[in-house]
């Protein structure tokens, strides 16, 4: 399979996964989500020639997406999007996000960047060893972080429900 075909296959297969992670990370901000999704796929394209499929494509894409989000924080205050005007518009024309999910994104958004990423991977039903592999955090440490994040989320949701 050519690089182009592989890229298109990955895009078709994983774009929803990437988008939802970016959307959660950006607390539902569509513009930032578009930037992050685009940046993730630009990085996937750049890294594709070296990807030998030793790990699963899904884990590999998660890693690129997670790292793109985490390191994007430095750009968010000084946006320098590399978007091409013409092509960007085709990708940026998103369906309007259902406002009922605001609460969900806002709750997740209260967590610190790293905890937000970890909790979204948990919500995506990823097994702990896989989350540990993606983040590079030891499994023991990861369990502690997840437990703390869950507690915080629980508190936030309880307060909101009152």
């Amino acid at each position, binding site marked *: 399979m050519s690089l182009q075909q592989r890229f298109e296959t990955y895009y078709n297969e994983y774009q929803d996964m990437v*988008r939802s992670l970016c959307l959660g990370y950006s607390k539902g901000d569509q513009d930032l989500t578009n930037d992050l999704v*685009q940046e993730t796929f630009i990085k996937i394209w750049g*890294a594709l020639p070296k990807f030998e499929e030793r790990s699963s494509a899904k884990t590999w894409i998660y890693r690129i997406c997670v790292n793109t989000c985490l390191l994007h924080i430095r750009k968010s205050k000084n946006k320098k999007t590399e978007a*091409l005007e013409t*092509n960007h518009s085709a990708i940026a024309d998103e369906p309007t996000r259902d406002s009922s999910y605001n609460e969900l994104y806002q709750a997740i958004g209260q967590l610190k960047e790293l905890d937000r990423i970890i909790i979204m991977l948990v919500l995506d039903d990823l097994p702990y060893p896989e989350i540990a592999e993606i*983040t*590079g955090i030891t499994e023991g440490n990861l369990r502690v972080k997840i437990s703390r994040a869950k507690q915080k989320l629980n508190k936030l949701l309880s307060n909101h429900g009152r």
Partner: protein
Amino acid sequence: MEDKFDQLKNSWKEAKEGQSSVGNSSDMLKVARENHNKSKKTQIGNVIVLSLVVIGLCAFFYFLAPLQETLSRIGIGLMIGGLLVRIIIELVSYQKASKIDYSSSSTDTTQQAQTFYNYRKRIHGPVTITIIALYTIGFYALTPEFSKYFDTFWMWMIDGSYVIIAIILFVGIRKGVVQEMKDLKQINELQQSLSE
């Protein structure tokens, strides 16, 4: 606690399912290809601009103003030498930046980004100041010989214009440095939260 979290999980799944796919793969491929190349060109762009300045200076001092005095030659050496050092630094920066592997684990990628920004921090400190100082000394070292060929008014214009250019450059460089230092601070915080 699990109940609340399960509710959240369900909402998350619903949100994911309700999200319709956007854009087709060929559009994204086009964007990825063009931006990937654009990013490389931007990084190499600085090196090309600096190289053109070096070529321009060499041509100027070789063909148009072949200065003879030792002080002038030292000045030319300092100006061109400083620029060459800067070009090397930019090339090393480019190489280090392209080594950041986003497909590694977050701890590894953050570590690589941290190494890159620490390198940039070192460069922005004494190295950049030294280069600018040597370039400035080199520029003003040309004044004695130039003043033999230009009257005082033009010498004031030449020397004065350098001050204006230097101020503009300083403001531009400072802005970039401040941003990069903010970036480094955030990466350090991220690295700390990964290791906590």
